[in-house]
C-alpha cells in the first residue's frame, strides 16, 4: 500500500510541475498584454505570480529528481525524465527572466507595436502550452506525443515569423536607435522562449522513440 501511495504522490508532483509549465505560459501572455497596455499594477501581479510558479517548479523538480534517485525508480527512463525536467525548467526560467527584464528596463512600447508584441506573446504562450501537453502525454500516452510535437514545431515557426515581423516594424519606425535596439532585444527574448520549448520537443521526440522500443 505504501508503494502505491508513494507512486501516486510522485505522479501528482509531476502533474503539478506540468500544470505550472502550462500556467506559466498563460500568465506570461497575460503579463505581456498588461505591460503593453501599461497596466503597471496588474503587470506586477503577473510578475509576482510568475516568480511564485518558478520557485514552486524548482522545488518540485528537485523533489522529483531526489525521489527518482533515492528509490531507484524508472531505471531505464530516469535519465530522460531528469533531462526533461531540467529543459522544461529552463522554459519556465526564461519566462520569468523575460518578465523580470520588462519590469527592470521598462521599455517604452509605442501603440503601433502593441498588437505585434501581443501576437508574439500569444504564439509563444501557445508553444509553451503545447509543450506542457506533450510532456503530459509522454508520461501517460506516448502515442499522442507526436501530435503535440508537430504543433510545437508549427507554433515555433509562427513565433519566428511574428518576431521577424515585429523587428521589421521596429526598424522601419522613427524611434531612436537605442529604443529600436531595446525593443528588438525584448522581441528576441520572447521568441527565445518558443525556441527553448522546441528544445524540449526535440528531446521528447527521442525519448518517446526510446520508450516504444
Amino acid at each position, binding site marked *: 500500500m505504501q508503494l502505491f501511495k508513494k507512486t501516486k504522490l510522485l505522479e501528482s508532483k509531476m502533474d503539478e510541475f506540468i500544470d505550472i509549465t502550462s500556467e506559466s505560459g498563460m500568465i506570461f501572455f497575460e503579463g505581456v498584454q498588461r505591460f503593453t497596455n501599461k497596466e503597471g499594477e496588474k503587470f506586477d501581479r503577473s510578475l509576482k505570480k510568475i516568480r511564485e510558479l518558478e520557485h514552486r517548479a524548482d522545488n518540485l523538480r528537485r523533489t522529483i529528481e531526489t525521489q527518482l534517485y533515492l528509490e531507484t*525508480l*524508472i*531505471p531505464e527512463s530516469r535519465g530522460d525524465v531528469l533531462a526533461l525536467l531540467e529543459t522544461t525548467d529552463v522554459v519556465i526560467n526564461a519566462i520569468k527572466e523575460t518578465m523580470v527584464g520588462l519590469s527592470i528596463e521598462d521599455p517604452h512600447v509605442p501603440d503601433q507595436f502593441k498588437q505585434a508584441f501581443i501576437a508574439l506573446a500569444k504564439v509563444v504562450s501557445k508553444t509553451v502550452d503545447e509543450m506542457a501537453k506533450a510532456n503530459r502525454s509522454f508520461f501517460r*500516452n506516448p502515442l499522442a506525443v507526436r501530435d503535440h510535437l508537430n504543433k510545437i514545431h508549427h507554433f515555433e515557426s509562427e513565433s519566428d515569423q511574428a518576431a521577424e515581423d515585429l523587428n521589421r516594424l521596429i526598424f522601419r519606425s522613427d524611434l531612436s536607435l537605442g529604443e529600436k535596439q531595446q525593443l528588438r532585444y525584448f522581441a528576441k527574448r520572447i521568441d527565445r522562449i518558443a525556441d527553448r520549448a522546441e528544445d524540449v520537443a526535440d528531446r521528447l521526440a527521442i525519448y518517446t522513440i526510446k520508450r516504444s522500443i
Partner: protein
Amino acid sequence: MIALLFLSSGLFLGWSLGANDASNIFGTAIGTRMVRFKTAAIIASIFVILGAVISGSGPSQTLGRLGEVTAVAGAFSVALSAGLTVLWMTRTKLPVSTSQAIIGGIISWSIFAQVEPEWSILIKIVFSWFLSIILAAIFALILYHLIGKLVAIIRVHLFRIDLYTRLGLIAVGAFGAYTLGANNIANVVGVFVPSTELSNLVIFGLSVSAAQQLFFIGSLAIALGIITYSKRVIETIGKNVIKMTPQAAFVAVLAASLVLFLFTSRSLESFLLSRNLPSIPLVPISSSQVIIGSLVGIGFAHGGRGLQAGPLLRILGGWITTPIIAALMTYGVLFLMDNVFGQSVG
C-alpha cells in the same frame, strides 16, 4: 550416511543449477535494479523448494522411464558426471544445460548396464527441447504485443508502469522459481528416485513420499546455490547480456515460466488428455534455453531487429556436445565404480 554420500553428487548438481539458473529468472530484474538481490534470492529459494516438493514428480517420472537407474552407485555416477560436465562446460564458456547433461548420463548408464533405454521417451525429450524454445518465442511475441497494447489502452502513468513492472517481476520471478524447481528437480535428484531407501513420512497429517523428501533435499541444494553463488553469476551475465527494458524482462520471464509450467504440470496434462487434446510431455527442459527462446520472440516483436543466429546455433551445438561429454564422463565414472570400487551400478 553412505546414502547421503551418494546423494552428494546430486546436491552438487543442485547447487550448480541454483547458482546458474536463478539468473534466468531474476537476472534482468536485479541487473536493471528493479528488484534487490536479497529480495530475489529469498523469493526464488522459497518458491524453488515449493515447486520441487509440490509439482516435481512429472518430469522426474519421465526421466525414470527413459532409464531406471536402480543402483544408488549408478545414480551417483550419473549425477556426478552431469555435474562435472556442467561445471567444466560453464568454465570453458560452452553452452550447457543440466537437462541435456543428465540425459547423456542416463543413456550412458543404460549402455553400461546393458539396459535398453526407452528410445521413444528420448525422442519425446529431444522434441520437447525444440518445442520449448519455439513455444517460448511464440508466448513472448504474443505477450509483448498484448502488454504493449494494454499499456497504450489504459494509459497508465510512467511511474505507475514502473511500480507494476516491479511487482510483476517479483510475481513472475516467484512463478518462474516455482516452475524451475518443479521442472528441474528431476535433473538434480530424479535419477536417485528409483534407488532411494527413504520411506514415506507423515508430517502433521500430511503424507510425504520418499520422492518428495528427495525433492526437498535437492531443492535445498538449489536454494543454497541461489543464495551463495547466483549473485556472482548475475553480475557477470549482467555485463554481457543484451540490454533489456524491465517490461521486456517481465515478458521474457513470464513466457519462460509459462513454458516451464507447461512441461511440468500434471493437472494441465490430465486436463488436455481428458479433452482428447495432444498433451505436452512432462520433461525437464532448460530454463536458459527457454529464456533465449523468449528473447528471440521479443526480437521478432521488434520486427526482427537485433536478432542473431549465434545464440540459437550455440544452443543446437550444446544439445549435441553436452550429452556426448556427459555420456563419456558417466561411462568412465561407472567403469571406475564397477571395477575399482567394486560398487554395483546397475
